[in-house]
């Protein structure tokens, strides 16, 4: 985990985290936990009617991206996370989360990229997060 502004440089890559494959049970758990009961995520017939089959909650994949972010930078220093949903995620797919430092701003702020993809490298969600880290330099 990175705890100081000076320890990060533009272009640095954060270590990839790899999740277990998404199961149907996980989608049921996430539906209950989040309150997102869109039946497209849990009911076979609804998935078939939509022409996609059952798809994972986009917010579950974003939650995995957030897990990556807060495994790299302490949660309390992260002050924004914004992402775009790029592709649908299906049960059985495994999500990998990567990130890199894009920019170092004044006031000890860093801007970084976060990407969640499957085994084949298909990007599911991508976006940026910002964090303000303490400095080692005593003012």
């Amino acid at each position: 985990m990175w705890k100081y502004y000076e320890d990060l440089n533009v272009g640095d890559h954060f270590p990839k985290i790899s999740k277990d494959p998404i199961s149907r049970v996980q989608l049921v758990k996430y539906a209950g936990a989040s309150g997102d009961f869109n039946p497209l995520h849990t009911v076979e017939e609804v998935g078939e009617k939509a022409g996609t089959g059952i798809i994972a909650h986009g917010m579950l994949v974003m939650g995995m991206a957030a897990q990556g972010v807060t495994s790299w930078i302490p949660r309390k220093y992260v002050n924004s996370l914004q992402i775009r949903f790029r592709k649908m995620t299906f049960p059985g797919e495994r999500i990998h989360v990567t990130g890199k430092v894009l920019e170092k701003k004044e006031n000890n702020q860093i801007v970084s990229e976060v990407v969640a993809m499957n085994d084949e490298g298909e990007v599911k969600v991508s976006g940026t997060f910002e964090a303000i880290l303490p400095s080692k330099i005593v003012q």
Partner: protein
Amino acid sequence: MGLELAPYTYSVEKGKIREFSAAIGDPNPIYYDEEAARKEGYEGIPIPLTYLQVIDLWGGYSFEQKCQMLNLNPVKILHGEQGYQFLKTIYAGDKLTVSGKVADVKVKQGSSGGMNLVTLEFEYRNQFNELVARSRNVTIERH
């Protein structure tokens, strides 16, 4: 556009934080154990970065209600974008009041046909009436 959603209030609960983190499979001890969180410099159990979805869906409008209110066809919609901004750490035990509005509605022609883009913005205030977070999301409705 400009439509304001009736505000709602909901408490952040540690059991729900645990359930939510377990559903994602995030093992970070700060979400499960208050002592571990305090050791890392938190005042209690903090919320995960995407937890405000719980406040919105359990405390506010359900998926069906939202579709009805915004006149969206539930089988034609996709989540396009989601953003969170945090001004202060939110902890288990906090009580959040949320106000939201429709910030933008656009019609777009994509490669696979037309679509409506609906942008909602929300503000979250704690029990001391401090603004602690903002969120913004874009819903895509395919024609």
